[in-house]
């Protein structure tokens, strides 16, 4: 994606307009925020979970990459086990999972805002389970 065709970008714009898992949760178990300090991209993820089930909703603002990345990532995080697995990936593995492996280094930071949020969520949920 370091070299966008017009078609690829148009597809991304369409995906941006139809983001998944957007919204807020009543009485969430945890709420986390993450941001890209270089440009103000930010996402807030709320989760409800028990030992196995996980439901996430998110809101955010920022560039197309940061927002589409969050939407794509949550497709892979449908249980606490998946959250643990996805949040532990190396950055390059994570970018591959969410089909953003060909970004420039600067744009990788936009996509990785979503990973930062998932890592924080994993930390928060494991803290709350340990209590």
């Amino acid at each position, binding site marked *: 994606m370091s070299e966008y065709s017009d078609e690829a970008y148009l597809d991304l714009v369409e995906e941006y307009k139809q983001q998944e898992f957007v919204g807020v949760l009543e009485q969430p178990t945890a709420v986390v925020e993450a941001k890209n300090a*270089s440009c103000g991209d930010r996402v807030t993820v709320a989760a409800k979970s028990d030992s196995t089930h996980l439901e996430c909703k998110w809101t955010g603002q920022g560039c197309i990459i940061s927002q589409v990345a969050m939407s794509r990532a949550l497709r892979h995080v449908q249980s606490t086990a998946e959250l643990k697995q996805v949040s532990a990936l190396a950055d390059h593995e994570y970018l591959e999972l969410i089909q953003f492996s060909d970004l420039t280094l600067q744009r990788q930071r936009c996509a990785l805002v979503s990973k930062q949020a998932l890592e924080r969520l994993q930390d928060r949920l494991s803290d709350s389970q340990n209590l």
Partner: protein
Amino acid sequence: MPLAPRTDFPLLSSSTVRGHQLAYLDSAATSQKPQVVLDAINDYYSTSNANVHRGAHFLGDKSTQAWHQARQTIAQFLGATPQELVITRNTTEALNLAARAVASSIQPGDRIITTLLEHHSNFVPWQRLARERQAELVVVKVDKQGQLDWDQLNEVLASSTPVRVVALSHISNTLGSVFPLSQVVEAVRHHHKNAVIVVDGAQAAVHMDVKFDQLGVDAYALSAHKMLGPMGIGALLVRRSLLETWEPVLVGGGMIDEVTLEKTTYATNLEERFTAGTPDVASLVGWAAACEYLDQWSWSQHLAHDRELVDRTLEIAKKFPELEIIGPTDPDLPRIGSVAFVHPKIHAHDIGQVLDSVGVAVRSGHHCTMPLHNEFGWPASVRASFQCYTDLSELDALAEGLRKVAAVFGNL
């Protein structure tokens, strides 16, 4: 036609990006380097490399001469003396040095004044210093055109609370606006004769005639890499009588008078006193070559060329009705070096990426001015910036790129 021949710049004359001729509109982030600068650095290492002020041998002497000659050239270019030129790694280090050097003079309750549009390098050091010394940091507001809130500044200056530091930029790296330094100096001195006035000149020194001895300020920070020189070297110009009162921030090799087990006295020569450790001689030599290169043209030629680029970019941006140009648009207000804009729906990074796809390099982000962006609710902005080598044809590429942005994001 650009002011400086494109063929003088190897990167500019040879580079294509994704099949397009490179349009490099990110010179405010860093400038490209002419061959004479690259040659000067290479020649130094090829013919003169040895440590300065140390070995009593031929090469040591040659290197020391190169160091002092370069200091002389750079100081003269900036209207300062070599004794007033404290070499740093960059503007940020220069401003941190200023903050460290004045720290002991700040008492609890004193005021440090800065402005809303400062680069973080001229904001964070003062914010930290104010916290450490229990002083008050006063941030003078600016409007969207980068014009100072004089009512606020005058009110703060008229108060009896001591103002120890006034830190402001010469040209805004985000808005391209120019602070009227002489008016600020007059207002500050009228009320607080001994306040230390520190200027961030990173964006100014390559576009306008900076003559330190005529500015009336106490310290002026700048970086070589913004003015056709190499990265990793910059300076803080400090008024000599003030510098003589400053304790060196870095201590160690090369800056001492005498070291015993009990105590150390520092070199009385200011050029040595503020040069701790082996300096980056090659970069300084490269910087001096950049100053000589820039000196080929008068400052009125530099400014006229820049004005043409600014006006053309403003014209282009105005053709895209949703773009909000930030910084001065009133023709009576100076704008130098850059034009930045925001879009209500399209994030700056997305604009930057589409522009990159047609070979246009711009800066997108908050440009290290988060307080300014937050104040006006801009998450990030896109900035096109210019240099003596910038050609109008690069602005045609920008216009083409913006048309592509409009097409790609048209129905967002």
